């Protein structure tokens, strides 16, 4: 359903003062979308926007690290929609996609958001809760000229896509938080 498609206002992800923050408790399971929960492991700040239904968390601030939850992305819909842009500005998820296609979908989405040298590598099978999913790494240069690394886990079900995408500054922050993020990924389960 469209409401689950993440609408990002100030994307990649140059978010700024439009955000409101809510504490995500480290020891309380957190719902992501309508059907999944994860264990946050540490305290996160959940970022909300006036017109956003998706989830975005950060530990140190949006300029340094971001964990995006794209849940129940329907076939024919983009992972990210930017207000004011044409409907076809972002690539769509399609039911016929396989893991390699989804990896390219994420690459193209990040590129069209203005990032440069977006490269996804190391595509590998991974458990997404009880489902068979896949995982891959990302590197890119952000709009601000920052070298960013990322880790994405995703799974497909019927005609919908679920994906969690962690992005962080390569320098210091990515390696610092990657173990926590991997635990969050490993904790994905049905609600």
């Amino acid at each position: 359903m469209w409401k689950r498609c993440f609408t990002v206002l100030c994307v990649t992800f140059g978010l700024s003062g439009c955000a409101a923050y809510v504490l995500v408790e480290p020891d309380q399971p957190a719902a992501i979308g309508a059907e999944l929960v994860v264990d946050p492991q540490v305290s996160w700040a959940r970022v909300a926007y006036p017109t956003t239904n998706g989830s975005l968390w950060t530990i140190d601030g949006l300029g340094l690290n971001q964990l995006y939850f794209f849940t129940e992305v329907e076939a024919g819909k983009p992972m990210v929609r930017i207000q004011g842009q044409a409907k076809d500005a972002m690539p769509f998820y399609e039911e016929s996609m396989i893991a390699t296609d989804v990896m390219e979908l994420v690459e193209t989405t990040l590129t069209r958001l203005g990032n440069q040298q977006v490269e996804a590598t190391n595509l590998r099978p991974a458990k997404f809760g009880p489902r068979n999913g896949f995982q891959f790494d990302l590197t890119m240069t952000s709009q601000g000229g920052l070298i960013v690394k990322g880790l994405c886990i995703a799974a497909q079900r019927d005609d919908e896509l679920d994906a969690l995408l962690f992005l962080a500054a390569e320098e210091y922050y990515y390696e610092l938080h990657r173990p926590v993020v991997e635990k969050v990924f490993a904790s994905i389960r049905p609600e």
Partner: protein
Amino acid sequence: MTRLAVTCCAVLAPLFSIILGNPAVAQMQNSIPIFRPSLNSDEGGLWMAVEEIEKDTQRSPLLVDDETLNAYVTDLVCRLAGRNCASVRVYILEIPVFNATMYPNGMMNVFTGLLLRAENEAQLAFVLGHEIGHFLERHSIQGFRKARDTNSFLAFLSLGAAGAGVNYVADAANMIATGAFYAFNRDQERQADVHGFNAIVAHGYDPIQGAELWKAVIDEQEANPRRRAPSTFAATHPSPEERVRSLTQRAYEIKAQSKETTDGLERFREIIQPLRSQWLETELNRGEPEESVALFSRLLSNETESAELQYYLGEAYRKRGEEGDLDKAVEAFESAAGSDGVPAQVHRSLGLLAMKNGKKVAARDSLIRYLALQPEADDHEMIRFYIDQL
């Protein structure tokens, strides 16, 4: 007017040592002395702002550091700029769009998207000559003064402030997106075209190549149904048709004089082709497959035996996904698979397409072949998972 607009030796001495570790150095030493506008002038202030952009450029992760390529492009720029050679500093940036930009202080940015799209040295020389024309005619300061004298001054300052900050990549992207940096008027563009044209004629290049490149790039941009803004050239340059017509007419006038010309193809390919694979990949990942199909088809028409281009064309068709495109992709991959120097990824692409089409045996065979050629491929775990499923 062709007044020299130059720069400060003291400020840029370290830069020269970085950029000029190439054959261009000797030629630069023979060019005319360097000066810079007074700091009390508006032009001096503009230069100071741009020098901040230049410092960011020197630190940009997008900077291409291949010494041979830098020496080649710098040498070409130097020859085209002639006695103004020392005033121009070249930075090659790995940005896949077609562009080169000239800043008022002599900083020239050349995007890899231009190097990928130029078919020969003559085409590259035309674009570089055009940009040098903007610099020598000091079009930027003219635009600055015009903006200052109108209500758009604040907008101009805003653009400058963004550029002067750390946000170089965003700056480049924004400039490309808005066309702001191309905001020269049509007369200025015609002047720059004259510079580009005269430069390639003076250096013995085939004069038709400028028009050929513009036409190809316009065709490429107009193949994209999502491109709602006018193409790069239609937005602020003379109309594409006028530009191609004018350049073509002048080229044939020169050709009628039966002067011997060159397109510089051999040297160009010698430099560009070893680096091209990365640029093809970056172009494909730009997410504009309609433009990639047009570009790769054009390049392939000049190198019909290139397995590398056949592979990337197949990938572009696969990503475009219009009716019949998957068949075209398979055709391109199969053509590449039968050629020498075929990338191992061709077999992965064939295997994945066959898998999606339910052709399990063909899929398995291709994926096994891919891993045989590239057992440590970064996606080998996923491919093995697929093979086990087939």
